[in-house]
């Protein structure tokens, strides 16, 4: 009775509110249960969920452009294609250094293949340019060496760039992360070189390129920096630095290599003034095509909607989102066809499977066991064998046509076309997926008591009414389960449509397989797969709303 006067919470024996103590006990229980299933959960997460998530993530991931040519991407931001035909010289300059490094790391062709998905021809533009990067650099390197042999001396360069001060560790760190992104490898080991502060202020570009060279030489090639002659890109960077004003400041520099640097600055006119844009267009005319640069600009973001747009027959252009050319539209058709044909296959499975399951459930055990084996036997036969068998049966010189011609139903000249079209795919796939319909139907029908139908009949129902009003409603959970199984399996099928589908009977999964295993356009493959997955989930949700998922039984 004291509870009535005390409005505070109900307490347990140890004075803690009962609610909290109950919740605590429950939580402990749940935690224990979770720990029991933890091994399985972790296993499923690691081997199943994570790879799928990773694959789906590729449909938007597009870091490759930024990681391979970061400075060019930055420089391109200031370029307005509407005002200028081609990007300014600055872009071409940055692009030279980006691409030089990418070519050393053999990453430029990867970027070329990626961009070739968006604009035909970029692949070979990158490939052929990568081979000739040295040529541009040599224009600077050769006169430097003619002037002073120090400029091809590995140890001299190392001394010059190290300087005599504490060292610019920020620059080193920045270049490490740049190279790590480019090569997708760890670049954090000790490289035996730190760029000097003074020299990197005097020659910023040279210091940057030499640092990148040093990290790459040591971490990737496994060589000693002080023993390797720097790349042509470093010479080019030095020439540009000097031409851009470092020459006049070189007089005030007194660190290691000051003498050589001053000599070079005094003889600045021996170094060529290179028009990088001209040089590039000379190597490959693609670099003079504004579309190439616009493509790079449009696809320079870390994430892209491009793959998803492609999978619904749209495309990303500099002017926004547009429909693809009519002669390239295919995916919407394929999605529609996949869904339509999967539904057709599902309904044919219901039509054929229902009577068989009914027989199986209602015949004496001995006969029904034999029938069940007949259902299962093809199920145990290889998928390819069954598909090829349909080919032999259905083709124009095949068994069925031969019989029809023989009995005179069909004229020899007009044999029926039953394969390499939608009909062939539907027939073969219905056969292959039929057991997935029969088995759940059979196990549900077995649980329907015979007495119900008898009772209906004894109350005056006709055979049809008894079946339709009493038996059929009880078998619906089996139909539901069978339909979901068959539909989901058929929506992702690709071997059978590939072999018997011809041109009109192939599914979207055939294109996904092509992009994953042949064209290596995993981004597009992943986008198509994601859309397919979403479509299945939406249909499942619709099914749940209309029929109710509790109404599905496998037995």
């Amino acid at each position, binding site marked *: 009775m004291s509870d009535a006067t005390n409005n505070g919470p109900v307490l347990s024996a140890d004075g803690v509110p009962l609610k909290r103590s109950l919740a605590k006990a429950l939580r402990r229980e749940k935690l224990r249960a979770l720990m029991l299933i933890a091994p399985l959960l972790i296993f499923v997460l690691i081997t199943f969920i994570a790879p799928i998530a990773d694959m789906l993530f590729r449909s938007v991931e597009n870091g490759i452009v930024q990681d391979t040519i970061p400075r060019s991407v930055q420089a391109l931001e200031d370029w307005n294609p509407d005002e200028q035909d081609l990007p300014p010289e600055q872009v071409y300059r940055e692009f030279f250094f980006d691409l030089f490094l990418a070519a050393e790391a053999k990453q430029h062709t990867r970027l070329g293949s990626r961009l070739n998905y968006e604009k035909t021809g970029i692949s070979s533009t990158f*490939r052929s340019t990568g081979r000739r990067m040295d040529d541009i650099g040599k224009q600077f390197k050769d006169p430097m060496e003619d002037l002073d042999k120090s400029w091809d001396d590995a140890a001299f360069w190392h001394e010059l760039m190290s300087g005599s001060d504490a060292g610019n560790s920020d620059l080193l760190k920045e270049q490490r992360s740049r190279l790590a992104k480019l090569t997708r490898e760890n670049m954090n080991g000790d490289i035996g070189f730190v760029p000097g502060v003074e020299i990197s202020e005097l020659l910023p570009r040279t210091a940057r390129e030499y640092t990148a060279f040093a990290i790459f030489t040591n971490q990737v090639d496994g060589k000693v920096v002080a023993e390797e002659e720097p790349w042509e890109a470093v010479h080019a960077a030095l020439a540009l630095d000097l031409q851009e004003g470092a020459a006049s400041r070189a007089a005030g520099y007194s660190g290691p290599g000051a003498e050589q640097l001053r000599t070079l600055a005094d003889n600045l006119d021996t170094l060529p003034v290179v028009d990088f844009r001209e040089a590039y267009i000379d190597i490959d005319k693609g670099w003079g095509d504004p579309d190439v640069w616009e493509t790079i600009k449009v696809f320079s973001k870390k994430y892209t909607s491009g793959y998803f747009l492609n999978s619904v027959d749209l495309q990303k252009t500099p002017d926004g989102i547009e429909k693809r050319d009519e002669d390239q539209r295919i995916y919407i058709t394929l999605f529609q066809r996949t869904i339509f044909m999967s539904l057709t296959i599902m309904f044919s499975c219901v039509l054929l499977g229902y009577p068989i399951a009914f027989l199986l459930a209602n015949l004496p055990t001995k006969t029904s066991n034999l029938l069940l084996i007949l259902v299962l036997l093809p199920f145990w036969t290889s998928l390819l064998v069954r598909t090829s068998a349909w080919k032999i049966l259905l083709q124009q010189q095949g068994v069925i046509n031969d019989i029809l011609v023989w009995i005179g139903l069909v004229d020899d000249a007009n044999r029926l076309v039953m394969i390499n079209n939608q009909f062939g795919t539907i027939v073969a796939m219905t056969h292959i997926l039929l057991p997935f319909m029969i088995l759940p139907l059979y196990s549900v029908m077995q649980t329907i008591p015979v007495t119900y139908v008898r009772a209906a009949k004894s109350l005056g129902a006709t055979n049809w009414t008894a079946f339709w009003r009493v038996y059929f409603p009880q078998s619906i959970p089996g139909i539901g389960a069978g339909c979901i199984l068959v539909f989901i399996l058929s929506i992702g099928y690709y071997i059978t449509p590939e*072999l018997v589908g011809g041109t009109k009977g192939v599914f979207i999964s055939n294109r996904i397989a*092509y992009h994953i295993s042949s064209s*290596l356009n995993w981004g597009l493959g992943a986008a198509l797969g994601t859309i397919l997955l979403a479509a299945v989930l939406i249909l499942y949700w619709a099914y749940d709303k209309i029929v109710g998922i509790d109404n599905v039984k496998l037995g």
Partner: protein
Amino acid sequence: MNLNKTMIIAGAAALFAGSAIAEDMTIVSWGGAYSASQDKAYHQPYMAMNPGVNIINDESSPEAVAKLRAMNETGNITWDVVDVTGESAIRLCDEGLAMEIDFDEMLAPAPDGTPASEDFGDMIISDCFIPQIVYSTTMGYRTDLVGDTPPTSMCALFDLEAYPGKRALEKRPINNMEWALMCDGVAKEDVYDVLETDEGQARAFAKLDTIKDQTVWWSAAAEPIQALADGEVVIGSTYNGRLFSAIAEQNQPIAMLWDGQAFDLDGWIIPAGLPEDRLKRALDYVYFATDTQRLADQAKYISYGPARKSSAPLVGQHADLGIEMAPHMPTDPNNVTENAFLYNYEWWADYRDDLDAKFQAWLAQ
């Protein structure tokens, strides 16, 4: 009794030691008759010379490109040497998944001392690809279904009046586009220039349109052979080796045309990033397996032409049938008609994605 025991122990020890020494090397190829020919011509002699190496055959070449990329991403490369087509090799090289080859350093010179890079010559289409064989995609036809005038030109494919009936073509644009243009009157050397333009592509599709209703599109090379054998098609494209075996080994009523054959290359790549010891072994293997004699030996078992110039004179007879193999090589001078062409790898590397999309859309129309 004692002796027996000793022998058993010694035997077991020897077995154990043997298995501990033998190193596995995984070589990936296409399976079937092709892998068998490599096994006889390369693997078995190599293992006889190097008892410490055990070659494992993996038949994953059809999925090699995707699998190599997956292996590279997980950093666990289980393959040592991989057999791929020239087109895939370019893709793998571009993606940095295959190692670059120094031809003169890493491969055997010809018996007369010619360096490997010259001996392979034009066959070197990528820095990562060691050519092994030249095969061709060409036309086969039913001898009993073509009447009294069997076709002599590849363009019989487009001649529905003289040769009515179904055709079989591969379900991809490569080769089909070239054939369509060449039979539409474009000279061989202009084909790719024409195909680069929208009008040229439309022209090729228009030519293919004339036989589209009558064409069965295949994706596995066994399909057209089966269709020819069943009389399902009158004429169709497939690999010359498949046609040779259907004609010479299975005596089907099929004949083949060398006219307009489209050459293609098949060869080895070594995955990038192999550990030092496995790389050394893989290089040792390809040095042996791509020398002049070994390439000539393979032609004993399958009718594909060796990729080295110096191998051609050494091609002998078929190992089982005793047929002289030289006339069945796609590269035999008598078989290289003026319409024969090596498809342009660089061009297709650029245009494949684009034309494939158009081709699929065209098929679906």
